[in-house]
């Protein structure tokens, strides 16, 4: 029952905030904060008392054991039922959603001042949709929440965003975001329906439930086509390079809270979708597709990095860096080794924190300097209290500095993928040099260098200081002690890795060929 | 000569129809447009009659009756509109009334 509450709390909170607008400016903010705190507390309670060390799933067991499950028939005729289930992976991601939701509310405390109630309604609806995505096990319900996430995000960007550089308006960015994700969502819907019909074809009854659809035998190329349907939907959200056009515009024009949410959680829904749906539903197709996906990931790493170096708008720069990080996630997902998959989870969490930190920092810079253009910044080091210090820490995190969770995640992905695809890892490792370039460019252009004038800006107030300190503490905590995170998701990742047990992905270069010599 | 092959009748109707159509397309004066319309309707009626008599069935002429009622109705409404057009724009040129431009 608690799962239903997990989904409903953000929605109810959203409606409350909307109405609370009448009782003054502060009411919606506090309600939103309390709602997200409630979500976080609920997940932590679940985390403490639930044990997520599922015994290694024995190959025979057909039903996957969820930590918690809640099922109510919704449309029996088509076998659609509101089926929420929780396991290690979704628990970690919902906790992340709760935490980042609180951050989003906190960082827009002073930034949003018109229609506050409606803003928080949208914000909480996005979070509610995301929690729904992480819990939904019925494909129809999953698609419902997947589409439901987009609409409030559209309003968030369109109504409260800033006008973009070179006159690109925020409406255009919001529309672009909407079209990209909507079109790809359609592809996924087609794939889901095809899958259901295929299931109906050989079992005679409609069912959208995850467990049933896992068993539908599909012909070779049918499975590939459906897998591509799913993959493209998640590739747009991840984002994978050719389909990434919407992210920089959406980020540059979204309000800080929007960017924190967008970068922190929405990108993770795509990775979660791949791990939960794209890989398990079509194991063989994913295996044959693995080399291509890994090359796409590599292209993403380098393309994101090169473009990040050339940006003038600070938020676009950070957006491109998250494209580069997500390239590593894609490599990790399709590498098929448990170490890499665990690395993906840590990298997702780490990127959520470091991206959220960087966006909050750019939000605060915008509040003080009223510009996002790097040309107008410079030499801000001593003039902003401890904000530069924190940005140095977050830049170090996005750089992949050991001791931060990003390093742990990235290196686990690279360590895990090396036996299966050494060439990809070697090229990916060179990506670390580019990570250094764009991170230090960010530091150099904003904080170091000659300062235009020596005007002092007010430092961080209590709220901002605790926020940034909290995020940095988590980044370092998971950098030095990621074990609790790894234990909770080890069972799920074991299952996903089990799928690749069959054979090494065809395209990978087995170790011996690299050796090419006497053994 | 033992009777008129049906095709000739239909060809006559087609000729009349084509002339009416041409008139409809290139005349700018509303009156001529309506007249060309009448011609086209009339040629359609002719085709019905020719076909009806060729198959020796009365339906052709019944249909002709309907064509005529239609022609009458259409002509009356057309002319009423013509008058309004003239009142409103002091001209009968159909091109002048192109408010619904793209």
């Amino acid at each position, binding site marked *: 029952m608690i799962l239903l509450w997990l989904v409903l709390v953000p929605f109810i909170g959203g409606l409350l905030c909307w109405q609370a607008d009448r009782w003054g400016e502060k009411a919606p903010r506090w309600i939103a904060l309390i709602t997200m705190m409630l979500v976080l507390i609920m997940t932590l309670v679940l985390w403490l008392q639930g044990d997520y060390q599922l015994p290694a799933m024995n190959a025979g067991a057909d039903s996957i054991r969820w930590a918690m499950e809640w099922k109510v028939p919704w449309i029996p005729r088509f076998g659609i039922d509101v089926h929420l289930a929780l396991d290690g992976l979704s628990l970690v991601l919902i906790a992340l959603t709760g935490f980042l939701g609180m951050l989003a509310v906190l960082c827009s405390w002073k930034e949003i001042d018109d229609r506050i109630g409606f803003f928080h309604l949208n914000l909480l609806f996005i979070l509610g949709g995301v929690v729904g995505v992480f819990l939904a096990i019925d494909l129809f319900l999953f698609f419902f929440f997947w589409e439901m996430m987009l609409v409030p995000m559209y309003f968030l960007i369109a109504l409260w965003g800033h006008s973009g550089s070179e006159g690109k308006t925020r409406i255009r960015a919001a529309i672009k975001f909407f079209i990209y994700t909507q079109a790809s969502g359609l592809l996924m819907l087609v794939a889901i329906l095809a899958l259901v019909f295929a299931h109906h074809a050989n079992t005679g009854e409609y069912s959208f439930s995850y467990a049933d659809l896992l068993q539908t035998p599909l012909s070779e190329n049918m499975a590939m086509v459906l897998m591509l349907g799913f993959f493209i939907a998640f590739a747009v959200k991840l984002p994978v390079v050719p389909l990434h056009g919407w992210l920089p515009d959406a980020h540059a024009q979204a309000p800080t809270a929007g960017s924190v949410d967008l970068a922190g959680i929405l990108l993770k829904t795509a990775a979660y979708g791949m791990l939960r749906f794209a890989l398990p539903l079509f194991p063989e197709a994913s295996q044959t597709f693995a080399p291509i996906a890994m090359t796409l990931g590599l292209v993403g790493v380098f393309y994101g990095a090169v473009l990040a170096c050339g940006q003038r708008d600070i938020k676009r720069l950070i957006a491109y860096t998250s494209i580069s990080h997500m390239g590593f996630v894609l490599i990790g997902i399709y590498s098929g080794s448990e170490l890499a998959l665990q690395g993906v989870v840590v990298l997702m969490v780490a990127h959520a924190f470091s991206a959220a930190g960087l966006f909050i920092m750019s939000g605060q810079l915008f509040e003080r300097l009223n510009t996002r253009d790097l040309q107008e910044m410079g030499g801000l080091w001593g003039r902003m209290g401890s904000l530069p210090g924190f940005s140095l820490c977050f830049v170090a995190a996005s750089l992949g500095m050991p001791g931060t969770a990003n390093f742990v995640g990235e290196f686990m992905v690279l360590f895990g993928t090396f036996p299966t695809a050494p060439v990809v890892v070697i090229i990916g490792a060179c990506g670390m040099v580019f990570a250094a370039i764009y991170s230090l460019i960010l530091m150099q252009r904003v904080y170091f260098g000659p300062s235009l004038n020596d005007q002092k800006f007010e430092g961080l107030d209590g709220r901002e200081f605790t926020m940034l300190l909290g995020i940095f503490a988590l980044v370092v905590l998971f950098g030095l002690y990621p074990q609790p995170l790894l234990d909770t998701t080890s069972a799920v990742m074991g299952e996903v890795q089990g799928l690749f047990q069959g054979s090494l992905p065809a395209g990978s270069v087995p170790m011996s060929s690299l050796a090419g010599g006497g053994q | *000569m*033992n*009777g*008129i*092959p049906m095709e000739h*009748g*239909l*060809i*006559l109707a*087609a*000729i*009349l129809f*084509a*002339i*009416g*159509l*041409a008139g409809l*397309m*290139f*005349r*700018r*004066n509303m*009156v*001529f447009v*309506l*007249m060309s319309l*009448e*011609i086209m309707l*009339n040629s359609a*009626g*002719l085709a019905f*009659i020719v076909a*009806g*008599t*060729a*198959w020796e069935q*009365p*339906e052709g*002429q*019944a249909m*002709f*009756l309907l064509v*005529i009622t*239609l022609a*009458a*109705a*259409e*002509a*009356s*409404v057309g*002319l*009423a*509109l*013509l*008058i*309004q057009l003239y*009142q*409103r724009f002091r001209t*009968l*040129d159909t091109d002048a009334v192109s408010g619904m431009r793209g």
Partner: protein
Amino acid sequence: MELAFYLSGLVAVLATLGVVTGTNAVHALLYLIVSLIAVAIVFFALGAPFAGALEIIVYAGAIMVLFVFVVMILNLGQGAAEQERIWLKAQTWVGPSILAAVLLGVLVITLWRGNTGLVIEGETLTAKAVGATLFGPWIIVVELAAMLLLAALVTASHVGRLPSATSGEHSGGDQ
């Protein structure tokens, strides 16, 4: 009987050509009446006296009179003729007439290849038979025709009201 058909057909075609290329509205009307009468003769030649009569009474009689009446109201006559001549410059009618010719060509070719071989001998189809079908299976169609006429009546009377006849509203009001 064939001679009458072909002759009146020729007259009909020439008259319609006259209508279409005429510049003076009244002349065109008269040509139209001639063409309608020629078509009526064709009906008689084909052995459809009822249709022929109808054509003359309703078509030539009623509708054409209506036209003449409207043309007289708007006293188009000579004044508008020059205007017509300007409008009929070469490049306006060349395109549409080519198009009509192409359409005609297509119709003629299809008809020509059709060769159904039916020939009209000319024995008349009496009005009685037509009346029987009309008020037999086609009764609903007649009712519909009546309703159509009623609708046309109402519209024409409403739309066609002349300002002078109404209680002094400015012309072209929002009837």
